[in-house]
């Protein structure tokens, strides 16, 4: 028998089913939009709906991830800018405070920047970015907006070394602002800052402001040094033990100003 004839199924069931399937398909193909729409919708609801929902969820997750990345980037950018603005705000505050700082008569303020800080525990020496070429001289007074910070100890071409009040070699002739009692400001690792050489007969109280006396010829008169935090009167001793809380925060030094004589 020719194979072409035997290829077609002899089983009538197959023929009937095939004809039936083709008829349904043709009917659906030629049917109106109403019928095809109904069949299509029913099939989509049954088979596609969970996957559509899954796809939407994935899309939402992907877009949420992209949004999160974008937000993170802008958050970093904004926090960086915020830090920058905070720095500017702080600088603005410092400069405003400086505007209110009136240097002693015959002196002008020369702003300078700290290059390096030295000292164990509390800083006692700093390197500033101005030197001989900027007309900086040894023993010029160094202040910040809160008060006396120290003096210039060594001058190089472009840099200078400043002894802060926390350096034991830096001593300041001082007086109590209220009672005009005099003494010498010293610093030691054990006693911290104290007012030495102040006789026990003098009038010194806790909370008194200590300022430079101008004696000694190095520091001009009237610069704030600190506040008296304790006054002890040891027996058999002539002088008080007076502890001073410095006006300048030596751990948080940012800008320093040199008081240069006006020529």
């Amino acid at each position: 028998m020719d194979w072409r004839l035997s290829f077609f199924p002899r089983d009538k069931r197959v023929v009937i089913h095939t004809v039936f399937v083709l008829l349904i398909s043709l009917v659906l193909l030629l049917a109106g939009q109403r019928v095809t729409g109904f069949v299509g919708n029913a099939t989509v609801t049954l088979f596609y709906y969970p996957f559509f929902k899954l796809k939407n969820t994935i899309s939402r997750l992907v877009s949420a991830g992209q949004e999160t990345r974008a937000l993170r980037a802008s958050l970093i950018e904004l926090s960086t800018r915020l830090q920058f603005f905070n720095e500017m705000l702080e600088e603005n505050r410092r400069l405003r405070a400086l505007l209110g700082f009136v240097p002693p008569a015959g002196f002008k303020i020369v702003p300078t920047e700290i290059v390096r800080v030295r000292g164990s525990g509390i800083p006692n020496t700093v390197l500033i970015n101005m030197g001989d070429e900027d007309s900086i001289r040894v023993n010029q007074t160094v202040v910040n907006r809160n008060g006396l910070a120290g003096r210039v100890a060594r001058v190089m071409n472009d840099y200078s070394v400043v002894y802060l009040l926390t350096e034991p070699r830096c001593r300041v002739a001082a007086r109590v602002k209220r009672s005009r009692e005099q003494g010498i400001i010293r610093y030691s690792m054990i006693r911290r800052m104290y007012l030495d050489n102040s006789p026990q007969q003098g009038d010194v109280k806790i909370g008194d402001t200590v300022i430079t006396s101008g004696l000694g010829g190095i520091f001009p008169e009237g610069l704030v040094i600190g506040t008296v935090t304790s006054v002890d009167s040891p027996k058999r001793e002539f002088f008080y033990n007076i502890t001073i809380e410095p006006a300048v925060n030596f751990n948080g030094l940012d800008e320093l100003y040199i008081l240069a004589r006006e020529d």
Partner: protein
Amino acid sequence: MRFVPYLLYLFLIAFYRTILVEFFSIMWAEIYLSALIVLLVALNKDCLTALWFGFAAGLIYDAPDPSYLGVHMIILAIIGVVAARIKDHFNLESMKSRVLLVLAGLFVYSIPRLLLYSHFGKGEFVGIFLQGPVLSVIYSALIGWIFFVMRSGRISYKKLKSLF
């Protein structure tokens, strides 16, 4: 219970059309999954099963675009029944012959599909056919071949694992 695997195949077609097609398409080539599954069913089951499964797969394929509802049902039902008949008539048992049948079936499937869904001018048919459908047919047949190889046990998870 005997309908469960076929239902799963239909869900797989819906899943592929909805989500997987984006991940498995390479350039212009996509996997003709509905036709491939119909051919695989035809190679493993009888004529009637292949016929009705082709009809159902066509329905699932056409459902999102009801204006063409019926086209894929006819094409896939005919491909299913013809492939099953060829398999029975020529007693195809070797892998090569089965892959060849799958390849031929996919080619047959791709032509009316291209005629229906693509718009092209005079003389553009061959160019478009070579660009998209031929690559898709080869890609789909490759997937079919991998299925046969894995089914025959030549490639298995254990063997692959032993390589690495």
